[in-house]
């Protein structure tokens, strides 16, 4: 059993604001990217930016940086499951 250590990880206000600025920057970037004539490719671009943004939120705002291996690996399992559910459906949709 992992130890029930109650050592809080306090994230400073400065860092939270820095992440906020980063998130705002990426929001602007994603709007800008969508204005470019890159065809359907910018859906992937927007999604990539969204992944980066959610990575920032999870890592810093949701304190995943300070969590142990357990929560990290469980998060990975959950995301992998979702990816499989979506991905395997395309076995049907793409080849119908």
């Amino acid at each position, binding site marked *: 059993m992992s130890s029930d250590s109650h050592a809080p990880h306090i994230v400073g206000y400065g860092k939270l604001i820095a992440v906020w600025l980063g998130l705002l920057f990426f929001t602007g970037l994603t709007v800008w990217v969508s204005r470019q004539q890159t065809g359907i490719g910018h859906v992937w671009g927007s999604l990539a930016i969204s992944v980066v943004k959610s990575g920032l939120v999870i890592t810093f705002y949701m304190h995943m940086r300070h969590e142990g291996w357990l929560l990290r690996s469980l998060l990975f*399992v959950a995301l992998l*499951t979702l990816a499989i559910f979506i991905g*395997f*459906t395309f076995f049907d949709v793409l*080849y119908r």
Partner: protein
Amino acid sequence: MTSAAQFSPATSSFWNDTGKSGITSWVFSTDHKRIGLLYLYSVLTFFLIAVSLGALLRIELMAPGRTIMGPQTYNAVFTVHGVLMIFLFIIPGFPGAFGNLIMPIQIGARDVAFPRLNLFSWWLYIAGAAIIVTSLFTGGGPPDTGWTFYVPFSERTGTNVSLAVFGVFIVGFSSILTGVNFVTTIHRLRAEGMRWGRLPLFVWSVYATAWVQILATPILGITLVLILAERVLGTGLFDPTKGGDPLMYQHLFWIYSHPAVYIMILPGMGVISDIIPVFARKPIFGYKMIAFSSLAIAGAGSLVWGHHMFTSGMSDNAVLIFSFLTFVVAIPSAIKVFNWVSTLYRGSISLEAPMLFALSFILLFSIGGLAGLILGAAATDIHVHDTQFVVGHFHYVIFGGAGFAFFGAMHYWLPKFYGRRYHERTAVIAWALLFVGFNITYFSMMVLGMEGMPRRYYDYLPEFAPLNLVSTIGSWIMISGLILMMVNLFRGLFRGEAIGQNPWGGATLEWSVPTPPPTENFIEEPVVTHGPYDFKGAGIP
């Protein structure tokens, strides 16, 4: 619960040691044992209703043409039979009843991680069940879609599908919260010395089940929301005239409902893994592989939903891939069967009621599982898809598997919580009736399916009549066994012979506490020094 309230065990236990009594001490209790019994009685109520409906279906099919009901009633009865059995009995049954009763004690905990959430889960279950029952008597009458609620029919039928679907949604939410509670409990509340390698196999199976509950049930939730949106708002996401695709409904539905089959069967497998070593007086063979295969079944079982759609118009590539993956799931299931059989090898087997249920589980589950491979192979599936063969197959797996395991668990564990036990010889007779009747009922169905009788049809051709009659007679034998079993079991629990702390000689922790257990389970914090099937280490001959 009135009969339970009158019952008074001699010793101080969770029945009386809180000093509270009456109905509120049950329905607002946060004690996992009381909640487990609440679940047990609730799911058994719905089970018995659903059994009666199943018996009516069999009587209707006894002879061609109208026997006792009209076609619309028939459609409603098989729908309600399925909805009650699946969503109100077997899915909540195992985690809710035995997961609650047994799992915390087996890991050496006083209660689950979130006792109040646990109570809330039960209330949600009851609320959802009440809504489902209401849907039968209001609106346009009971749903007639089958338990799968397939579009487009479920969008258009005038029966009370919306309310039933909403009820199932609530029950699903209850299932998610139970899953969250159990995963947290198993991670956080294991007693000192209860390493992962010492968890009883029932706990492993509850753990794997809880993950399926957390990750698959929300997909059912959103699917049901989508049906409601189709019916109420007319969003048209599954309606081809509005650009939707009905097959997407089947994808979403089976993304949940295939893994849900493992919610039903995995805890049953765990029960069997706990019963067999005790009645063979041998440590389980291949502990690690059985534990691992529970997780493997939960994982691989989430990849195979497409095998329900081979004839629905899915792409050929998808048919091949899902067919292949279906065969992969057979591997961990077979690992379990081989390990159980190896445990029996040269064991000192005593054929008492729990063991008889366990042994018949192995046989019936194997038949059902192999029949599943016939359905999972794309080529043979086209022949038997949507025939009585499918009905036979899943009753072999879910009733012969999960159901028999549930009965085995009732015989094995319930005496522990009542301090009294059933009459052994009567239990064996009941088991024999159940087993014989079961095979007559459902094997006939598999043969009928092979001969081409479709499922869910109200009427059939004359050449199917003899076997249908056989199947119906089998159902009567089965039901007489079931009634005998229930009467004997519950009569024994309240009036039977008193039992000691460890009547079966088990080595898991629940047998180390008093019978019935006190409210906090353990008189002093347990320290675990031996494995769950290490009879020598536990000092049991």
